[in-house]
């Protein structure tokens, strides 16, 4: 398995979920920009599951060393890289913030995903599971930079899925709603709409096994987003969302 953004709690919970379900991998490649916490995770996998893993440093904001990635092959890729950044109120006119959000969630990520997509295309097998966001379904005034980057990612994934379909490669887009992770700690989220990494992992694993194309983590989000998407623009623009 290849994991992009291995420092993410959802990615780690997914790896644990797959291993608990009895899956074994000849190697798990943990790509990360944070060696410290990922190293801890690698040891954890060794103790808990007797599972080998290898850490590869990759920072989307720095030039990517594709030579290092060349040797990584697997039938399963899980991508949880993401960056929330500052919302509109604090960060809209902060260009550094805007660039980071677009780079990590879309611009710098897509070439890396393409790199692995090509490998799977050649293999004629594999699944790519990528976390996008419900924020990408409609731009809202509170965080539309993040939303637009995720919208780009969602559109890319849907195209990629289409392109890879007859090449036997499956693409699964995950649209988590609120998640109780480090990224959102301290934000006033509605607990009924917020999933834990463990819950998310269980849902994602099921979606993977049943070959879903697009999956929400909590079913409620499908309905919420359906409503949000269908509000006419002339009304939507007046709302404070």
């Amino acid at each position, binding site marked *: 398995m290849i994991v992009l953004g291995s420092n993410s709690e959802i990615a780690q919970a997914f790896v644990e979920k797959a291993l608990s379900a009895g899956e074994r991998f000849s190697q798990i490649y943990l790509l990360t920009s*944070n060696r410290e*916490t990922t190293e801890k995770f690698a*040891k*954890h996998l060794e*103790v*808990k599951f007797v599972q080998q893993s290898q850490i590869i440093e990759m920072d989307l904001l720095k030039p990517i060393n594709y030579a290092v990635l060349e040797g990584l092959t697997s039938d399963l890729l899980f991508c949880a890289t993401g960056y929330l950044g500052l*919302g509109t109120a604090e960060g809209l006119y902060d260009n550094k913030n805007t660039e980071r959000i677009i780079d990590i969630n879309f611009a710098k990520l897509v070439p890396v995903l393409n790199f692995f997509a090509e490998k799977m295309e050649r293999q004629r097998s594999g699944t790519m599971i990528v976390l996008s966001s419900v924020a990408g379904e409609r731009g809202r005034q509170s965080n539309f930079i993040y939303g637009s980057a995720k919208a780009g990612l969602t559109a890319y994934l849907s195209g990629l899925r289409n392109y890879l379909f007859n090449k036997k490669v499956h693409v699964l887009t995950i649209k988590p709603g609120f998640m109780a992770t*480090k990224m959102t700690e*301290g934000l006033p989220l509605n607990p009924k709409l917020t999933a834990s990494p463990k819950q998310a992992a269980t849902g994602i694993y099921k979606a993977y096994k049943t070959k879903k194309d697009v999956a929400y983590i909590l079913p409620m989000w499908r309905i919420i987003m359906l409503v949000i998407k269908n509000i006419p623009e002339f009304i939507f623009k007046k709302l404070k969302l």
Partner: protein
Amino acid sequence: MKPTYKQVIANWGNFPVVEKEIKSEDSTKKIKEYVRNHHDIIARGNGRCYGDAALSENIFSTKRLNKFISFDRLNGIIECESGILLSDVLEVIVPQGYFLFVTPGTKFVTIGGAIASDVHGKNHHAEGCFSEYVMEFSLLNEEGDVLPCSRNQNSEKFWSTIGGMGLTGIILSAKFKLKNIESSYIRQESIKAENLDEIFKLFEESESWTYNVAWIDCLQTDKNLGRSIMMRGEHAFKHELPKKLQGNPLKLKMGSSPSIPFYFPNFVLNNLTVKIFNLLYYFRQSKKEVKSFVHYEQFFYPLDIVNDWNKIYGKSGFIQYQMVIPKESGKEGMKKILETIAKSGNGSFLAVLKLFGKNNPDAYNSFPFEGYTLALDFKVNSKLKKLVSQLDSIVEEFGGRIYLTKDSMSKSSLTNYLQNVQNPKFISMQQKRIDNN
């Protein structure tokens, strides 16, 4: 959306309930920063202490310190971060033929919490407290430095942290020894005792058993005072097991066993229901003595089967009152305590009696010492304060003390036994309460 780390929070007894800042991190660098920039901090594991011990102005939750570090499968030594639960450890070690030397009555406590409370199990008389098997741990102190602590290194900190209720710093990780087992089953004998005399005699006769515990029906009076069921057990060897269990002797889950101990009634607790419950519990076993093989889950963690059972006490919450009374006067003390409870009409749903063995003098902050310990749950109501104060006086009279990890309203003379824990950074609501009394 601005971060606000305030949360409504309570420990297992849902009393007291407070609104405080909670933060959690997994990177040592960030935890250090947090400690340097805050004051009035206490570490919190899984909040399974009952009262106000894991509460403070700033609570550092160890929920993200949830990784294993190493497992020496040959020698049975495991190392993990402090937020790992005993249940996580069991999942890894049981299939490999290992068990925890010491476990409390729930497996949902963290390693950090087990060290900070120096927890005991049903085997204290034979195998001591959790700390006996802790080889080393790392502690983040008030300066934000990480200290390796063991019997040889920073030994003063090592011993004051054990049973130190989080007041010496934040335990980040720990390494401890495991016990060999051949099966995940316990050879159990449960024996009914008509009264206090009988149960005390049973405890004395059972000292050679590794695990002993008794459930007392606390609403009985006079000649039935102390009516109880004693359960004693040993880890079963593979060859002892009934044939059908031998196929998978190290089974992790108990599966659908018809002998799930007991489902707690889900209606409002009052004296009558407690009485009925205790009667049912006692008469469920019709024979005087029953021998059986039970899965460790059932033997050690009967309450864990029912999720969130603490909620049955309702919004006002409950307390657990656990004291130890020196062995010589154990029976006399328990008698007085049970009489007082029966008279108060404030029935306890759950009363557990155990015998503690000799304490380890190095672990000077540990609660247990040689004697009898009784743990009782009481629903919080207007009469409870008075009862607690009556019970406290009896415990004091007999030279006993109260278990800090369960305490939320006892006298400070019974709860101020900690030494070498004064610290400008780390303080709990419990310690403040005790200091101000």
